[in-house]
């Protein structure tokens, strides 16, 4: 009996290993393809074999020196643009999210429930529904085609994403607040000196998500920047490289650029993965 149980377990585990291995292959192989072909030396667009014949760094060097034939394709500039936008919108969004979620979670005031419901309802509208209006609004402020507009776009609605961090704050025992109040701390001191130092996972999670946002957003940046290529972010810049106009000359540089964006973000994400899981699960339990 025990033997057969053991045998059954070995068989099922082997089966699971095989399935997992195949799935991982499927999941990772596109990125392996991306990495391999970003070093490809020969050919222009696609080639009819999977592993390149000739490896070179030329694509990366061309990408950063901007030697591709068109002056408007300027990857270093795009990278810098995105970095600046990401840093500013990250700071503003983190402050907004933490402020909103903290006050909705741990402070008690009359309009609290109403604000939460309004926040939920506003969160249901798709972001791109307001894009045209947003464009006109920013146009009226003479901000279209600037990086400031992007910072505003990415950070203005951040306060609506309070649910996860609110869930986290809900799990911190109230007794701490009470003890601090008895010791004479006001709400401001409780927030900065007691709750925030305890909330490292959720702070890291919020910083991380709002920092990565601008690197990944495509449609808002496209609408705001139009054809002003100097102010592009990496997302729309790389997409521009794959349009019919540029794909012949820039396909390999596009692959190299994708690697340059993906690698830092991936490393950042993997290092912060622990916080991400903690943030999501802690916030998810209470909804």
């Amino acid at each position, binding site marked *: 009996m025990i033997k057969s149980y053991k045998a059954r377990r070995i068989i099922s*585990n082997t089966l*699971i*290993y095989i399935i*997992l291995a195949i*799935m*991982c292959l499927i*999941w*990772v192989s*596109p*990125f392996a*393809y*991306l990495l391999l072909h970003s070093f490809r030396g020969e050919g222009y667009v*696609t080639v*009819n074999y*999977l592993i390149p014949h000739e490896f070179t760094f030329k694509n990366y060097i061309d990408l950063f020196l901007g030697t591709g034939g068109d002056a408007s394709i300027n990857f270093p500039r795009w990278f810098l643009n995105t970095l600046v936008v990401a840093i500013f919108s990250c700071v503003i969004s983190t*402050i*907004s999210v933490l*402020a*909103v979620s*903290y006050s909705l979670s741990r*402070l008690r*005031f009359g309009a609290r429930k109403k*604000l939460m419901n309004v926040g939920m309802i*506003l969160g249901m509208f*798709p*972001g*791109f*529904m*307001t894009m045209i*209006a*947003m464009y*006109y*609004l920013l146009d*009226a402020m003479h901000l279209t085609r600037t990086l400031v507009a992007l910072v505003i776009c990415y950070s*203005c*609605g951040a*306060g*609506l994403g309070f*649910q996860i961090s609110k869930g986290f704050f809900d799990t911190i025992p109230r007794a701490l607040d009470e003890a601090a109040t008895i010791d004479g701390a006001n*709400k*401001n001191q409780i*927030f900065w000196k007691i709750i925030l130092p305890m909330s490292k996972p959720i702070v890291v999670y919020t910083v991380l998500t709002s920092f990565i946002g601008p690197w990944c957003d495509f*449609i808002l940046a496209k609408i705001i920047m139009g054809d002003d290529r100097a102010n592009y972010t990496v997302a729309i810049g*790389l*997409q521009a490289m*794959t349009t019919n106009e540029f794909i012949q000359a820039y396909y390999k540089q596009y692959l190299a650029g994708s690697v340059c*964006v*993906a690698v830092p*973000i*991936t490393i*950042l*994400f*993997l290092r912060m*993965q622990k916080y*991400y*899981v903690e943030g*999501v*699960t802690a916030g*998810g339990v209470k*909804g």
Partner: protein
Amino acid sequence: MTFVEYKMLNPFQRFAYNFKKFFKSIPGAFGRFFSACGRGIKKFILGIGKGFKNYGLTFVKGDWATKLSYLIFGVGDLHKGKTYKGILFFLVELLYAFYMVFFGWYWFKDFFTLGTRETYTTYDDFGFPQVHAGDESMKILLYSTLTIVISVIVFIVYIANIKDAYRHQIMRQNGEKPTTLKQDAQEFLDGKYHITLLSFPVLMIGIFNILPLIFMILIAFTNYSKEHFTLFDWVGLQNFGQLFDVINSNKKATTFMGIAGWTLIWAIVATFSNYILGMVVALMINKKGIKLKSLWRTLFVITIAVPQFVSLLLMNQMLQENGAVNILLGHLFNGGESMGIKFLTDDVWTARITVMVVNCWVGIPYTILSMSGILMNIPEDLYESARIDGASPVKTFTAITLPYMIFVTTPQLITQFVGNINNFNVIFLLSGGYPCNVAV
């Protein structure tokens, strides 16, 4: 029926019982819904009535400064020695007056017509064209919406100003002194801390989320289109009528219905395929006896970590007629010749299925990541006691793991469903929205 009686039924009887209960509860639910609506409306009307009553009563009871506050903001506060607040109230009125005189009214006066003058061109004596700019409905609508929002805010400030003036009058009658600026500042760090924290985010959301939203909703009631680009007009509910006018097979209606149907299918399939498959994989990774757990997880998580536009544009390139997928399939099944399958450009349903499969590739790791965290959180003693009671692995799964996970992840499931209805990136970056299935 008691709980024990219910537990003694077989599954079919339980289903029949629940079925009957559900339909029996429908009329009651409707009744409750409408009575709740009625109560809400009644409360609202009563609230307005009370507001008017207070407005009048305060005016009657107020002294001269409070009465003057009805016209000039902040007079009451200034008179009672609350100088800084009075000045702030007055500044609000001053700024609002400036705004209305020099900007707001100019646009708002055309709000109900959305402009009447067409843009036209004449030629002067030398034959040069002269463009006479007409009204721009878009700007009129946008600035009018802004004016309305600002007016509502100023109205709230106005009411607050009256209330504050009356409050200070009562305080003076009772011989109390108004609080100083320093005390108020302290209060904003303690009792009113929520105002300090919330004002900035709420302001941002108000200007850049709610205002555009109102604006876009208002546009739904106009005839803004290619034919009426600069000058358009209110048309009431006409657009909505056309949108649901399936009987006359209106072009807008057929397009909308087609798209709405597909969106619904997409949202359901995308959400549940990701959820179920992700759960299966997470269970496999977290199964006892499986080694290298963190390696498997990391390999999957790479897909999340790589920015979506990179992976989706890559997928788009790989799924082209002579892209990597066709080459690979060719090597496997076609003796080295590319298969030449048009995944994304030819047939509507091929493209749809491709998009759904790619969405699985993008979305499953998210489920794996959050599910693994939850699976590790399930208390081990639950399983232990189940094992002692002689439960089989299948039974432990259906009775412990599954209910626990569904309970914890339901909010996530709902947000994912809404997110998929509003999903733009996956389809746009993959196929650019092609192939079109409706004649435009």
